[in-house]
């Protein structure tokens, strides 16, 4: 026992270092959001909630937060809806060239956000679509649709097709098959893709910066705050963004994987 514990020491130290490397910046960010002085640098003074108070009374930040929520909800819902429709069509019907269609669906995953953002900017300009939150929503659907499609498609295999066939055999109309069989069975996959899309949209910066103008999302607002120098207020906003992301991860974990375990 003792010897095995000794052998494990290098591994434990290594793992600790890895996690320290990953979480240190976040920990520092959160810690100095409670700083009681004007600069988020050591030594730590406080704790104090004054910067959180400042954040919540800043109508620009609060506006950006509202925009971010709206963009995340709408773009994730759209991504799931479109991803589901595409997955359903490709999984249930034999279409000529469906392999190519599938590949094209997930191909945007390999393109960087910067390239997608620039492409959208040029496209919107030639089409006369103004820079706006709607443009941001479209951009986020572009990056999240492939993910939603891939997750949902992977759950629509032969077994589920057989269940749908059985429901039809027992007299279910197409909409009843969809509502009573397909959707309930896909629920975990739909939730997983919704929350994953939400998380990615929530802190997406480059596309949001390129295609928005007067109304901006929270990451863009934080970026403009940072341009005026370091300030514990930015730490407080960053911590809020981080907390929302963490909550989403836990909600997903609970809804998707927790359910599966209990079944």
């Amino acid at each position, binding site marked *: 026992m003792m010897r095995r514990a000794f052998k494990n020491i290098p591994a434990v130290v290594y793992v600790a270092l890895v996690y320290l490397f990953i979480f240190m910046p976040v920990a520092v960010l959160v810690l100095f959001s409670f700083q009681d002085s004007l600069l988020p640098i050591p030594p730590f003074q406080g704790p104090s909630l004054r910067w959180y108070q400042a954040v919540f009374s800043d109508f620009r930040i609060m506006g950006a937060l509202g925009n971010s929520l709206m963009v995340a909800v709408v773009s994730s819902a759209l991504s799931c809806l479109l991803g589901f429709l595409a997955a359903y069509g490709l999984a249930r019907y034999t279409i000529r060239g469906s392999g190519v269609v599938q590949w094209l669906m997930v191909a945007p995953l390999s393109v960087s956000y910067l390239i997608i953002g620039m492409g959208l900017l040029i496209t919107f300009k030639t089409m006369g679509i103004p820079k706006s939150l709607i443009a941001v929503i479209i951009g986020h659907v572009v990056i999240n649709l492939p993910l939603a499609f891939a997750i949902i498609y992977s759950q629509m295999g032969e*077994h589920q097709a057989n269940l749908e066939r059985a429901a039809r055999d027992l*007299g279910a109309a197409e909409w009843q098959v969809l509502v009573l069989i397909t959707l309930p069975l896909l629920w975990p996959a739909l939730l997983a893709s919704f929350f994953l899309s939400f998380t990615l949209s929530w802190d997406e910066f480059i596309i949001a910066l390129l295609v928005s103008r007067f109304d901006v999302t929270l990451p863009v607002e934080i970026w403009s705050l940072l341009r005026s120098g370091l300030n514990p207020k930015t730490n407080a906003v960053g911590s809020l963004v981080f907390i929302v992301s963490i909550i989403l991860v836990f909600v997903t974990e609970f809804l998707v994987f927790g359910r599966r375990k209990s079944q």
Partner: protein
Amino acid sequence: MKPMVEIKGVSKRYGKTTALSEINLTIDEGQFFALVGPSGSGKTTLLHILGGFVEPSSGQVRIAGQDVSYLPPARRPTTSMFQDYALFPHMSVGSNVGFGLLMRKVPKPERVDRVAKALDMVGLSDMSTRRVHQLSGGQQQRVALARALVVAPKVLLLDEPLGALDLNLRRQMQQELLHIQKKVGTTFVHVTHDQEEAMSIADVIAVMNNGHLEDIGPPARVYMKPKTLFSATFMGESNMFEGKVIQRTGEHIEVETVFGRLQVSGAAEPGATVHLSIRPEQIKAEAGGMRQLVALGKLKVEEVSFFGTHRRCQGRHATSNHPLILRLPQNQPAAAGEEIAIAVQRDDIVLLAQ
């Protein structure tokens, strides 16, 4: 008996390959009908055409007098029991069984009543609130049967539903299926590749091969007097040999074979080469005594194995060296190298179509 299912000239082509060619058959009301054949013979395709999961390329399917050839599954008077059962994992056993009734808008009190009766019929009356994954394979099977029968279909389609069970459970379920079928009187169409299963439960067997019907009839007839070469080989072991037709006299033909000249019932033109078969259990090892037997000469025994109910004896015809299989009674041991006189009843020599 009234015809329940009429299949008229049904063909199915996938691109250039033909899965079914010109199938014609009638299944009577209340019949337990088995479709047998090797994989790729088209039996499952035919079942899917009956269920509405596959559209025929040409031909017509009538069920209970109604042309259903192009009706979707939901609008046919059929239900299916699938190979993987296809029970809905997110519903309880009771909801699974009640699903078809719910789709037919049967009012709740009646639905509850009919679900209880259906579960009772398959011996699962206390399982209504269980989840599907809490049941054993055999129990899931029964739920699938109850779910398909509770809506009182005119025809129940069974797509190799016993395939996943072990042998004992399989035999037990066969008997139960038969028992339930006789009780409810619904027409059953059962697809299987197990010819023993088909023979033990079906009223009528259709043997399929390469997309066409080889033989159709009651199990005893199909087994003892198979129509074609394929049917004879597929439905259990058989001895095959060729012969040349010498002459034809009324109902009989005289055929020159390796076993000598044999009289066979059936018709063929003199000079033609025909295929004949004799089931191993029909070859008698004692030629003496019984007058009406046709002597086949002697068999040189090569291998004997004990099968419980009989001894399977493999050997060669002493004069022609033609391979032969026969079944000896349990109490008649034979050793390799031994020569046994063999004979057969004339009626047990079967003339086969190509």
